[in-house]
């Protein structure tokens, strides 16, 4: 049976290591640990889903439209943040679309000063041109405490 957990000194550093099942914690390679305190763990600290712009029948001029989301005080001051976001659209009949695949719009985002900035840019004029057809441009996002 392989050794699975190690506490204390490993090489030149001290810490805690737990290997994946089947791997010897004393000899296994990076990436074969369940816990490796010499590496940083990617931790989710905030997530949400926001409406950025509602595209109705009327023409929306080409340009960038955005919303700002205030981050909770517990994470607003953190500087080592990273995030991922999924851009999607919801039609008013409930249908959902992966926006990058169907539209001439795209999403950009960043966090700064305790605020999450979400932007949708229309490369050309938008607007459904059809009465009673609207699209919500939305982003689902997660902010991580990363090591960037």
């Amino acid at each position, binding site marked *: 049976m392989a050794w699975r957990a190690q506490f204390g000194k490993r090489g030149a550093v001290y810490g805690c290591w737990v290997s994946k099942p089947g791997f010897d914690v004393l000899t296994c390679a*990076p990436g074969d640990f369940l816990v490796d305190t010499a590496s940083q763990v990617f931790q989710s600290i905030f997530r949400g889903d926001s409406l950025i712009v509602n595209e109705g029948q009327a023409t929306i001029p080409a340009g960038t439209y955005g919303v700002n989301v205030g981050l909770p005080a517990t994470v607003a001051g953190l500087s080592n943040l990273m995030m991922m976001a999924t851009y999607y659209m919801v039609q008013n009949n409930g249908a959902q679309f992966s926006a990058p695949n169907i539209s001439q719009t795209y999403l950009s985002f960043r966090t700064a000063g305790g605020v999450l900035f979400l932007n949708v840019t229309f490369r050309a004029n938008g607007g459904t041109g059809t009465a009673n057809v609207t699209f919500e441009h939305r982003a689902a996002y997660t902010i991580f405490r990363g090591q960037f």
Partner: protein
Amino acid sequence: MVSGALGGGAYGMRVSRPGYDVLAEPFGSAGISFDTRVSVIGTVVAAGLIQCGGGPLSFPAMNYVPIAKILRWDGTYLYDHHAIYAAFHRWLPAIALMTNSSIEVVAFTNPWVVTTNYFNPNGTYFLYYVFAVG
């Protein structure tokens, strides 16, 4: 390592990275490798900025080809799945080539459309993460 009261009425477990005092590091510090107050999605084997077309960057050799995530970065904003739209086609401007010890970001090309004529990602930067998942 601390197991028990973590302050603010919270109880759990916290482990610092080598060289960091687990009692002194603030919540969310990069010096903390594990904190039960936040959910964990994986260990980051390597992370940073990589230039598209700039050649591979190495990370510690793993026993498998790991999963990586790249996001285009223009200096201010990040773009996730930023599709380029031109010539009645859509595509992601760059892809990551992975081995068990390196990552390289190159422009997406194909035989039918000269993609870089519409948006050339070479020379631009991408934020990358390599996860301990393969």
